[in-house]
């Protein structure tokens, strides 16, 4: 039976690998699905190189290459065009082209040029791999998880869309709505709709995130937002402060759900073993579970929020900026986001204990009334 189980496992892995390969092949040959021109590089020839130097001691080699590209779609299909592609060794925004690369092309006046790479070829197979492994290793729970991931992403896109429909009225309110619906659905998917655990965790999540956001807003008000530079956020097209608050709210949600689920599940099992449990025992156990987890969770969010900024920070440092300026420009908002999130993560412990206690009392009273 054991060998059968193992064979079964390898069969599933094989299915995932076949799906990955299939998606790769399909994405290499789906140029006709696109309206923009796509071409495949047929030949590359190095034309010239030269060394660039700036006043900060950066020395880079710049390359020019002549590339021929065969068009794969639109009415120009089959035509071969060629152009010069320039790139440098830092590859911050420019890229060398290699034979067989598939790229999007843009035509300006007469000449063709590189517009973008066709990148779906690479990430979609990885997506299939990760989702496949999730389902294989977690069984039915894994399928539910994939489903809840998909639903959360759809909700997220829907919220962004609503932001435009409502003429960017207030993105923060929309994301508050998103947070409530998303956490409700996620918890129902993980634990079921009828369980007391689901609703206790939801109450806790709402309480602690609300409290953390209020503390954040209060601090912004008291300090007059000293040291905060919302205008430095990347990709900002509308009022930055509501945007920042939305990011903070969404970011902390998963971590708080994670912690609240762990803690409240432990408290419930304690309550089952000792129905006459008092607030003191709940406090001790709740604190114990919380202590173990809140440092690690704060670090998790910190690394997710900050890691993304590393390339930009290093670019600043290599451009002769000092550390203080680099920090302010690139990392300070991420730190504030981390701190508000960490406050939410810590507050989850008392919030969870509070709700377990209240619901415990309420159930006791109901039972006494029945007797």
């Amino acid at each position, binding site marked *: 039976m054991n060998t059968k189980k193992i064979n079964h496992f390898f069969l599933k892995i094989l299915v995932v690998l076949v799906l990955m390969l299939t998606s790769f092949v399909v994405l290499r040959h789906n140029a006709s699905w696109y*309206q923009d021109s796509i071409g495949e590089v047929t030949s590359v020839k190095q034309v010239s190189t030269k060394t660039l130097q700036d006043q900060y001691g950066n020395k880079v080699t710049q390359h020019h290459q002549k590339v021929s590209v065969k068009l794969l779609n639109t009415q120009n299909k089959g035509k071969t065009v060629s152009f010069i592609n320039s790139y440098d060794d830092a590859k911050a925004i420019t890229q060398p082209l290699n034979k067989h690369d598939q790229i999007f092309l843009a035509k300006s006046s007469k000449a063709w040029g590189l517009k973008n790479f066709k*990148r779906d070829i690479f990430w979609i197979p990885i997506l299939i791999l990760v989702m496949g492994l999730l389902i294989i290793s977690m069984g039915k729970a894994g399928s539910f998880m994939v489903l809840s991931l998909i639903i959360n992403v759809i909700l997220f896109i829907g919220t962004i869309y609503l932001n435009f429909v409502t003429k960017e009225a207030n993105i923060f309110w929309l994301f508050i709505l998103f947070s409530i619906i998303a956490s409700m659905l996620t918890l129902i998917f993980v634990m079921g709709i009828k369980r007391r655990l689901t609703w206790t965790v939801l109450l806790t999540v709402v309480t602690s995130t609300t409290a953390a956001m209020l503390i954040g807003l209060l601090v912004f008000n008291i300090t007059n937002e000293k040291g905060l530079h919302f205008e430095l956020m990347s990709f900002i097209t509308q009022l930055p402060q509501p945007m920042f608050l939305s990011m903070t709210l969404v970011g902390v949600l998963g971590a708080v759900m994670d912690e609240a689920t762990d803690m409240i599940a432990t408290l419930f099992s304690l309550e089952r073993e000792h129905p006459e449990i008092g607030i003191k025992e709940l406090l001790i156990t709740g604190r114990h579970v919380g*202590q173990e987890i809140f440092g690690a969770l704060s670090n998790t969010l910190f690394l997710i929020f900050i890691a993304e900024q590393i390339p930009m920070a290093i670019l600043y440092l290599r451009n002769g900026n000092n550390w203080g300026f680099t920090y302010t420009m690139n990392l300070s908002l991420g730190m504030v986001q981390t701190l508000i999130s960490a406050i939410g993560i810590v507050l989850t412990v008392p919030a969870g204990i509070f709700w377990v206690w209240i619901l415990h009392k309420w159930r006791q009273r109901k039972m006494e009334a029945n007797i």
Partner: protein
Amino acid sequence: MSVLLMLSIILFVLMLVVGGVKGIGAFISLWISFAILVVMMLLISFQFNPFWVLLIGGSCLLTVTVLSAGADERTTTIALIASFLVMIMLLIVILPTEHLAIAQGFAEENSEDLEGLSLAINIDFGTLGIVAALLATLGAIAEASVAITTGVGELLNERPNISNRDLIDVSQVLGKQIIGTAVNTVLFGFLADFLSLAVLFGKLQYTFGEIINAKLFTSSMLSLLYALLGVLLTLPVTIGIFLLYQKRQKHHTSGEKL
């Protein structure tokens, strides 16, 4: 008083009140992580080899995160070994993928941020992309690994004579719950990172095809996928290390008896 300072004080007081001495440990671990990142960035900008900085700094970050849980020696040892192994495994996946997907550095959407900066610096942004992608996953890996080891350890304390087969089965059930919630931590963390970019894509009325091929979208998506993969790998690796550790302990004690 600046926002950062005031929030830090509030966090410190809350962690102290809720977590006691261990709470202070959590607070300090956050700032140690920050210091490690600062040193890593400075070293890379001074042109130390980014891969060595990544491996050493990454190991330090894993250690700090694992230690912040304040667990016993067995848990700490196992969680550290397991999370370090997962980090290496992820690096093996990230290296070729980042190389192929060419999603490093910046795109035209960044042009406002890049004004006045010289992009031709001595450091390869491909490598920086790998550094950023791997670092973002480390917290989640360490957290999941500690949670799984603690859970399995408690189980073993309650039933010391459990067979290996049963231990694997029970810890799988337990691990699935931990992985399930950790996946959400990672997903929402990355959705938050992606939020402003998503609004920009909407504003610029990108088509579906443009979005799924955009450099910044691809790099965010891949970072999320690596982190999910890391969390998933943590379960079998942690259980494996746990069993090996048990086996060695048993040998050790039986050797002593003889």
